[in-house]
């Protein structure tokens, strides 16, 4: 089995290096095909591992080699394939294989085709390390690795100022969170003496709860960055500057869920500190609503989906925070499928629309983009959580969890958010595919994507539809390592009321969205309509002014402070004081050199003056010695010791 593990882990790396070989040369198809094949290999290996696990095989745990060993610290490159990581592996390999194949089509005309695949496969490799590592340090390697690849992919079109800016923003925001993660890791090490998951978690119950709380908080700070939780969320929307497959893979399906994965992985820790869990859940609920609200009015197709992702991540954190780790993981998986699908669909639309992102400028695309229309609609249905699509099983479960755990506020927030989700999803679908063909105004002639692209997307479509049916199998599998809490509403009646109620609410929202946006009266807004001038619209469309606040009150002051530090502190204080000392010495020399006037008489006077000065000192001293007793007397009289 170890062989499969290594194959699953390293084939993306090989793919990446292979593509990197061609990075500087013009597009060659092979640079895209080979990594895709290798990823498929990885997927196959992962599947074999999954089958092994499902069939009751042992958890595969290998230690490849020592990484860092000094003092008491011992960090190996260790990998574990257990029920949790295999779930993640499957998600990652499936989605990434799809995205790779999709990208061959999507990036067809890009001159940096080869480079794209190098980055993309490198990302998959990092993600695999992240999920397969058996220790915190390995997790951190993957953590940073995905950050790096995310930077490279967001900024892939580096000639675009906005893209590079977004790349840097994403990296730096993640770095802020990574610091928290790093501190969390330090805490783990100094309190447990190891960074291995199993050993560390084994020691944790014996630790002081304050320490555990800090540990939990700092690790979660790490998770917040990667999963773009408030207040570190702004990068995710901006990250949509990257090519769409990237958004699908990284900013929807895999990387952003790493935070959830971390919390799930550290479940023994969070179980010990339920108050932190509650905080996580509350934050998750808040983010779910907060992000959904921003998605309501946005006019950028990808950003809408990104906010939706953010919102769904909030759901996952609610589940994870409330101790329903398997639920979180389940929703993670389901979400990965339909959200990736949604993004890839959006990619098709963009392609067809020559990178136009404003859905108001589209409309009526269902004819030219028939398949895309179908896929996106189904994905949106899944996202909205309509039975029997994947979203229903996972999302409703989270609602149930919050209800059962008696967190009614969270429940109501989530419920409301579910409605919003349905609304904005279908607002998007309606705007893009229904109504008048507004795109014609812009002289665009949209075409459906390549066939193989559509075929490549189909596994995701299937999974988005049927993933819910794996629920029980999945439950049985992961609860081998996760707390096996079954969430059943006690009363059947309540359950049905709840479920049907939710479904109705969601359907209503969808209907409302269609009614409002699927008609022919929609025009491209130009900032004059009444709605656009409403305060709440402005707040929402400006993302609660948070990016503005960050720019004005953090970035700008930082830049200015840096300038001040350099120009005023470093140059004018620190350096100037050093030079000042030198200048004082020099100018003293310059001033006193007049003593050497070259005049003999002056020289003689100096000599005599020197002697006279010495004589005066001698007299003072001589008198002091002679009258030392009297002087002492006077001093003691004055009270001087």
């Amino acid at each position, binding site marked *: 089995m170890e062989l499969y593990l290594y194959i699953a882990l390293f084939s993306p790396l090989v793919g990446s290096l292979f593509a990197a070989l061609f990075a500087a040369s013009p597009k060659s198809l092979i640079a895209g095909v080979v990594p895709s094949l290798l990823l498929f290999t990885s997927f196959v290996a992962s599947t074999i591992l999954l089958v092994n696990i499902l069939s009751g095989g042992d958890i595969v745990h290998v230690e490849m080699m020592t990484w860092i060993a000094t003092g008491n610290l011992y960090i190996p490159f260790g990998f574990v394939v257990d029920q949790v990581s295999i779930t993640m592996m499957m998600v990652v390999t499936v989605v990434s294989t799809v995205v790779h194949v999709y990208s061959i089509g999507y990036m067809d005309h890009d001159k940096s085709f080869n480079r794209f695949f190098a980055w993309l496969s490198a990302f998959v490799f990092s993600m695999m390390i992240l999920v397969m590592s058996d220790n915190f340090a390995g997790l951190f390697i993957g953590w940073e690795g995905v950050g790096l690849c995310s930077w490279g992919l967001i900024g892939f079109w580096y000639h675009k100022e906005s893209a590079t800016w977004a790349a840097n923003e994403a990296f730096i925001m993640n770095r802020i969170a990574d610091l928290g993660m790093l501190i969390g890791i330090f805490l783990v090490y100094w309190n447990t003496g190891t960074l291995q998951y199993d050993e560390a978690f084994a020691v944790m119950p014996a630790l002081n709860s304050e320490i555990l709380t800090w540990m939990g908080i700092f690790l979660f700070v790490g998770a917040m960055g990667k999963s773009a939780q408030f207040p570190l969320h702004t990068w995710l929307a901006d990250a949509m500057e990257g090519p769409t497959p990237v958004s699908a893979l990284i900013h929807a399906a895999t990387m952003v869920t790493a935070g959830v994965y971390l919390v799930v992985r550290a479940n023994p820790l969070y179980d010990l500190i339920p108050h932190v869990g509650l905080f996580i859940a509350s934050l998750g609920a808040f983010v779910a609503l907060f992000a959904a609200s921003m998605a309501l009015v946005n006019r950028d197709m990808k950003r809408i989906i990104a906010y939706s992702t953010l919102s769904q991540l909030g759901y996952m954190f609610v589940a994870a925070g409330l101790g329903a780790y398997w639920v979180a993981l389940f929703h993670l998986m389901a979400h990965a499928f339909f959200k990736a699908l949604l993004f890839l669909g959006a990619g098709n639309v963009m392609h067809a629309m020559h990178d136009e992102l404003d859905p108001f400028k589209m409309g009526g695309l269902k004819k030219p983009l028939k398949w895309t229309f179908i896929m996106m609609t189904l994905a949106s249905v899944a996202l909205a959580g309509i039975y029997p699509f994947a979203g229903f099983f996972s999302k409703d479960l989270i609602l149930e969890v919050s209800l059962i755990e008696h967190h009614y506020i969270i429940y109501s927030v989530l419920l409301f958010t579910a409605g919003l989700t349905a609304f904005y999803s279908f607002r998007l679908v309606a705007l893009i595919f229904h109504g008048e063909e507004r795109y014609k105004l812009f002289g665009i002639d949209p075409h459906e994507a390549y066939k193989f692209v559509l075929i490549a997307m189909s596994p995701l479509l299937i999974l988005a539809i049927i993933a819910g049916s794996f629920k029980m199998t999945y439950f049985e599998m992961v609860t081998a390592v996760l707390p096996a809490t079954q969430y059943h509403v006690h009363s059947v009646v309540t359950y049905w009321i709840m479920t049907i109620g939710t479904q109705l609410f969601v359907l209503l929202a969808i209907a409302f969205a269609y009614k409002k946006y699927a008609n022919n009266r929609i025009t491209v807004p130009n900032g004059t309509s009444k709605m656009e001038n409403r305060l709440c619209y402005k707040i929402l469309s400006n993302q609660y002014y948070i990016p503005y606040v960050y720019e004005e009150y953090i970035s700008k002051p930082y830049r200015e402070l840096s300038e001040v530090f350099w120009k005023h502190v470093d140059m004018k204080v620190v350096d100037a004081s050093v030079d000042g000392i*030198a200048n004082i*010495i*020099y100018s*003293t*020399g*310059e001033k*006193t*050199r007049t*003593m*050497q006037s*070259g005049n*003999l008489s*002056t*020289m*003689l006077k*100096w*000599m*005599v*003056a*020197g*002697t006279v000065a*010495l*004589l005066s*000192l*001698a*007299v003072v*001293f*001589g008198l002091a*010695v*002679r009258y030392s007793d009297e002087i002492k007397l006077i001093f003691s009289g004055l009270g001087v010791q």
Partner: protein
Amino acid sequence: MLEPVNVSLESLNLMTLAPMLIPIIGALFILIIDIVKPNLDKTLYVMLSLLFLLLDLGAIAESAGIFAVNGTVMGVFDVMLIDGLAILSQLIIVGASLLFIPLALTHSRFHEFSYPEFFALFLFMISGFQFMVATDNLILIFVGLETASLALYTLIAMHNRDKSFEAAVKYFTMGALAAGFFSFGSMVFYALTGSVEINQIASVLAASNYADMGYVLVGTVFMLGSIGFKVSLVPFHTWTPDVYEGASAALAGYMSIVPKIAAFIVAMRFFEFLIHSGVVWLEVILYIAVVVTMTASNMWALVQSDVKRMLAYSSISHAGFVMAAILIGTTQSNSAFFLYWILFSFTNLGAFSMLWISRQKHLPNHQRTDHSYDKFAGMIKKSPVAAVIMGLFMLSLAGVPPFALFWGKLYMISSAVTSGYTVLALIMALNSAIAAYYYLKLIVYMFMKEPVTGNHEHVYAINATLALKTIIGFAAIGTVFALVALNPLLEFITTFVYNSGY
């Protein structure tokens, strides 16, 4: 009626006189040759002087042997005193003189070397310094000092241009004042103790337990004035830069070493017993003098635009530095003093010789003084070997290891540390840093600037002959490989200093 005096020749210990007599004989010899057959070439006199100096060195070695066996020797009615200090300082005096004399063999002709009298006076001067260091009798010190000084004034003036006359007159006048101070100081101590021998003065003062502190201090002030003048302590230093500038570079280098060591020996003999017997005032004053001399002259050296003047101020600073040895007054510090001065003489003579070989008779238009910094700009491009050698001397003077002077500084600062003069040690160290600034300035000019247009390639060696090059090579080797000779040197010095009771 007076008794007739019977003196046995053995009791006179005439051997103690031999080292001083040799240069006197040599000088007379030169004068006689000149009378018998005038117009002989300077090379003859150079070589004669060298021979006599070598003989002198032999005689000193002889007395060193005697000292090693018998310890301190007094001779000729106890006026002459051969102890470790005398031997070490005479070695330095004669050694430096040996290095100096061949510098007369320049390529260009300079006025002074065309006189045989120059060499005669030079040898007389050496004997004067030797007398100065080999006695503890203030009278002989005074007479020796004046003999040497008068000869030196003349040697400076014989360079025969306006600046050298000016220098000689300045030096002479201030020297006369210093002589007044010396005699006054001696008078005070004579009044106090009825003796003009330093040992005697020390023991009488100790016996009376320094009852007349006031008088002692006044005497010390005047002695300090005159010795301070000789070793150029601030504010008695004012002659130094002008005289060095006025004299020929070779002589200036010589002056930075030999007259000073003679004065230092006197200072060592005179001040150390005072400090050791608890004349706190002197300790304080010397402390101040050392610090001020080091620091102030460093500052002045910084702002110079002429290399020779810079080196003049730098040698003031070095003098201040070693004056600390006398302040500290331990065996280690006194050994450090000799070590420092030996290493310094190599380096400084080397540096001045480098100036000497580049001395032009007529200054080009862009040059305001003989050795302005500009002249050396871009030297590495024109004359790399010379630049590297000059650079080595500068680094050594700055105290960059492992060049010669570093070891002197190291041992000196160590002696300060060992005796608890921590702050002084720090000041000494920091002053080395200031000093590095101006040595570096020359290096910057030589290595980092573009050459001045109009400077010929050979301007840096315009005066060079084999003899001069040999001397410079010798100094350079000494500077670079000082480390090799350090241990025997240190042991030798320490033994001699220790056995002389210092």
